[in-house]
């Protein structure tokens, strides 16, 4: 496989070197992908810039038709795209098939939302004025996407950004660029240059993209470290940075939960995509009344997970993305054990698989918040379980984190669930249904998790700025202009309104006199 770059609506061979892309299940190289040159980056941005000047004016209805067409194409190529994602990312095929469908539905959602929202009309502060706002696109958006959900997390940026009238330069993760490049076939329904895809290894290409003066904003999903770097670079240029970073989601199981259901939910929420989900459940707080029974069930379900190649339909969990990622997870597990944690299952490569970046579903107990496994993002299939005395302790521990992305609770109890909903700091709070998204509902977090929301109306506003239009339909000299000696002769300098206990009998002033400077007029 020798991929090319997608610039200005056509495939372009790169003059740069290439870098290898592995299949994490076999560790074999499956493609050599171009390291885009600086000139190719410039061409991509120039093409997006040129396309912006026409795309932004394409009426919402026509944009909607085209974005629905992108969704239709995504569904048409669903199998190919899902296959590529399994090859390059290791996720089970059925998860990737779903991911393509979710990406398509995101385009459908924003196709319509973009048509329905353009701004507000606002009550003016003086008569014979008309005030309204118009939401406008930023311009060229640089999208830097991660390897865990290459298409979905791109769709969450591309669909609203395009619906808002922006054009895109996309840089996928160097570990999973293949499905994104394949997406060009779906984007080919859009005018040339509206979407451009370039590939490269390391931070250099992304940094050049951020620095380019014609790139108006940057949207990133990635690690906290990368987010801070991107945020710093953007800050120096006063460029908006839309950051969706890491998480360390808590998962609370109350004494009244159905233990069997909650244990299965916990194992799925912790091991989905080998734990490589930004909203993976990574810390479990179990009420003491059910702790022993719950731990037993979790171990049982964790051991029942079938590990293997994602293309095998019986596989529950594929490999992790890379050896480096496996090492990082294993190091956290080892460190926890050294500090006193007890390993109940997992913590190693599955013995029946000699190749591939596999790691067994891992359950740890006797953990506490002095351990990295309870503080730092693990991004692997590890379930550290901690006993708590009740809802107050569970909430306290849940909030003891630098992250605030998602949070989960299992309970039938109205008071506990609402208390936790109110007091746990998180961008999404799941009650009895972990890790579900809704195109119409915002997704994101606060603290080190990031500064923005994707999906929903807020997801569209993330890619638009607001222009306030102020219009006065009577052309007249304002009384508060120069010369001030005249302005100072205006007897009552504000529109006479009734103060609370004002006894003034004065009637409304004449139009001219009311037309005086107020705070915020200019």
């Amino acid at each position, binding site marked *: 496989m020798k991929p090319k770059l997608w610039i200005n609506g056509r495939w372009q061979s790169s003059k740069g070197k290439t870098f290898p892309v592995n299949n994490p299940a076999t560790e074999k190289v499956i493609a050599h992908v171009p390291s885009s040159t600086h000139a190719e980056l410039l061409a991509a941005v120039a093409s997006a810039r040129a396309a912006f000047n026409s795309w932004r004016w394409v009426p919402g209805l026509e944009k909607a038709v085209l974005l629905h067409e992108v969704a239709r194409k995504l569904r048409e190529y669903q199998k190919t795209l899902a296959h590529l994602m399994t090859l390059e990312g290791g996720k089970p095929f059925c998860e990737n098939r779903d991911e393509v469908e979710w990406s398509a539905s995101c385009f459908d959602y924003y196709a319509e939302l973009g048509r*329905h929202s353009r701004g507000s*009309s606002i009550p003016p*502060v*003086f008569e014979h004025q008309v005030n309204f706002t118009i939401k406008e696109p930023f311009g060229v958006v640089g999208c830097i996407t991660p390897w865990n959900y290459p298409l979905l997390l791109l769709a969450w940026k591309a669909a609203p950004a395009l619906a808002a009238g922006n054009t895109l330069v996309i840089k996928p993760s160097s570990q999973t660029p293949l499905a994104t490049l394949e997406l060009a076939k779906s984007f080919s329904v859009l005018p040339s240059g509206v979407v451009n895809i370039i590939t490269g290894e390391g931070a250099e290409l992304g940094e050049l993209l951020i620095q380019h003066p014609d790139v108006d904003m940057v949207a990133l999903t990635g690690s906290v470290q990368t987010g801070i770097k991107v945020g710093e670079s953007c800050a120096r240029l006063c460029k908006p940075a839309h950051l969706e970073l890491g998480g360390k989601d808590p998962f609370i199981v109350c004494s009244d939960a159905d233990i069997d259901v909650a244990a299965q939910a916990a194992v799925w929420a912790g091991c989905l995509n080998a734990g490589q989900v930004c909203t993976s459940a990574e810390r479990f707080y179990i009420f003491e009344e059910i702790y022993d029974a719950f731990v037993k069930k979790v171990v049982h379900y964790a051991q029942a997970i079938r590990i293997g190649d994602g293309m095998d339909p019986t596989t529950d969990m594929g490999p992790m993305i890379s050896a480096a990622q496996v090492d990082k997870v294993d190091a956290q597990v080892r460190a926890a054990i050294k500090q006193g944690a007890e390993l109940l299952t997992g913590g190693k490569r599955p013995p029946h698989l000699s190749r591939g970046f596999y790691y067994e579903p891992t359950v740890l107990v006797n953990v506490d918040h002095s351990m990295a496994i309870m503080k730092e993002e693990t991004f692997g299939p590890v379930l550290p379980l901690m006993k708590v005395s009740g809802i107050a302790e569970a909430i306290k521990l849940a909030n003891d984190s630098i992250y605030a992305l998602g949070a989960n609770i299992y309970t039938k109890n*109205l008071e506990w669930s609402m208390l936790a909903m109110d007091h746990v700091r998180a961008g999404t709070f799941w009650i009895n249904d972990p890790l579900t998204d809704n195109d119409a509902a915002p997704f994101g977090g606060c603290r080190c998790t990031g500064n923005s929301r994707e999906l929903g109306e807020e997801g569209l506003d993330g890619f638009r700025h607001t222009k306030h239009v102020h219009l006065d339909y009577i052309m007249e000299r304002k009384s508060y202009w120069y010369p001030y000696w005249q302005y100072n002769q205006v007897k009552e300098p504000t529109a006479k*309104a009734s103060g609370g206990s*004002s006894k003034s009998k004065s009637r*409304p002033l004449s139009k001219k006199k009311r037309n005086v400077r107020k705070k915020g007029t200019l």
Partner: protein
Amino acid sequence: MKNWGFYINNDWVKASNHRDVINPATGQVYARVGEATKNETEQAIAAARKAFDEGPWREYTAQRRGRVLFAIAEVIRKHADELAKLETENVGKPIVESEYDMADTATCYEYYGGLATKILGEVNPVPDNAISLTMKEPVGVCGLIIPWNYPALMMAWKVAPALAAGCTMILKPAEQTPMSALRLAELLKEEVPDLPPGVINVLTGAGEISGATLVASPQVDKIAFTGGTETGRNILKTIGSTHIKKVSLELGGKSPNIFFVDADLQASIDGALFGVFINQGEVCSAGSRLLVQKKWHDEFIDRLIEQSKKIKLGDPTLRETKMGPLVTKEHRERVQGFIDAAVKQGANLVTGGKAPGGDLKDGWFVEPTIFTGVTPEMNIYRDEVFGPVVTVTPFEDEAEALKLANGTAFGLAAAVWTRDIFKAFRMVKQIRAGIVWVNTMQPCFVEAPWGGYKQSGIGRELGRYGIEEFLESKQVHINLSEAPIGWY
């Protein structure tokens, strides 16, 4: 005794006929108010029309309208004690409740004062070379017809959003309870000078004459009514056969208060009693049907009866009084009629059911009344009583509770008591009512919409929904292309 007139164009106009106002706690006449004729009603309508069409009010900016509303809130706070006494004397509600009403009334004006500057329209992304705006504008002259159970507060629910929207209005309080509206008019004249003439006009009189004139008038753009379902039906008929106008109706209810055995029993008993006996049961959202899960039923009833006997009936001006008289003699007779019919139909009267006598014999009191063994065919289960009467009906399980809860022509409110989040949300989603409380009954906040499904009305009051009822939407399309269309 003062003969009150009508408040039209910021002035008092003498009335040609009068009506006595009676204190329901004593049966004594204590005021005389105008009884508007058709002509007098039309005079008030003309004032509101002129104020809307020509007056300075429509040139007021949203900020300035907001400041007028803030000023009204201040006036109500300043005179809250006086207004509360006036309300208690006129309606019979306990003074402590009237004081809460005045605080809520002031808050309502303040809330809509703030909302005036937040009336947003939209910019529409039309597929053409054009700017398309939706601008929000006041609906025009409004006839506001107010009920007698919360005169000042129900007035605020309509007057405040109507003013914030920029409307002018004719306010017709209930003929039995006009005093707080008249006093408020006096206070507005003295203390809110920035309110131009004709914006708020207060007209007292019978529904059949002044109310009907408002409803039929071609000069009125909108009717907002709170009251009984039958009157609501008549308003729609009249509008249908005279002059079409916008209408919002907040009508009756027969709201279920549903108790599952996993709830807290004492909190449930409190909630059951408060839910129906507050304001003598003269509340549109009264929880007048208690549905109690069978396992609890007997104990629940015992405690309910025991605690209901502690409700102190008496002179509503005394702070220890928890329940006052009903609003009028006629209304007491109507409520007594429901009680007698229920007994005749086989319902089991377990407490109350009559006037208390003794010191209270001159007022129109009815004791807190509880019926058990009530089945869905009985009138007492189906019809709105609007008095201190509650029925208890047992249910087996969630499905039966839901069937009973929804088995009513009304759909104003409901309450569910449970600690189970699944059950709570299943019930919330399946109950057909405009308001559903969980583990409480009756809290009402100006920020959240209020109104009913089914026969309980049309439209919503309070919150952003409340102001929408007084706004029209104007679509403005500005073509940005000068090219001839060349169609012909």
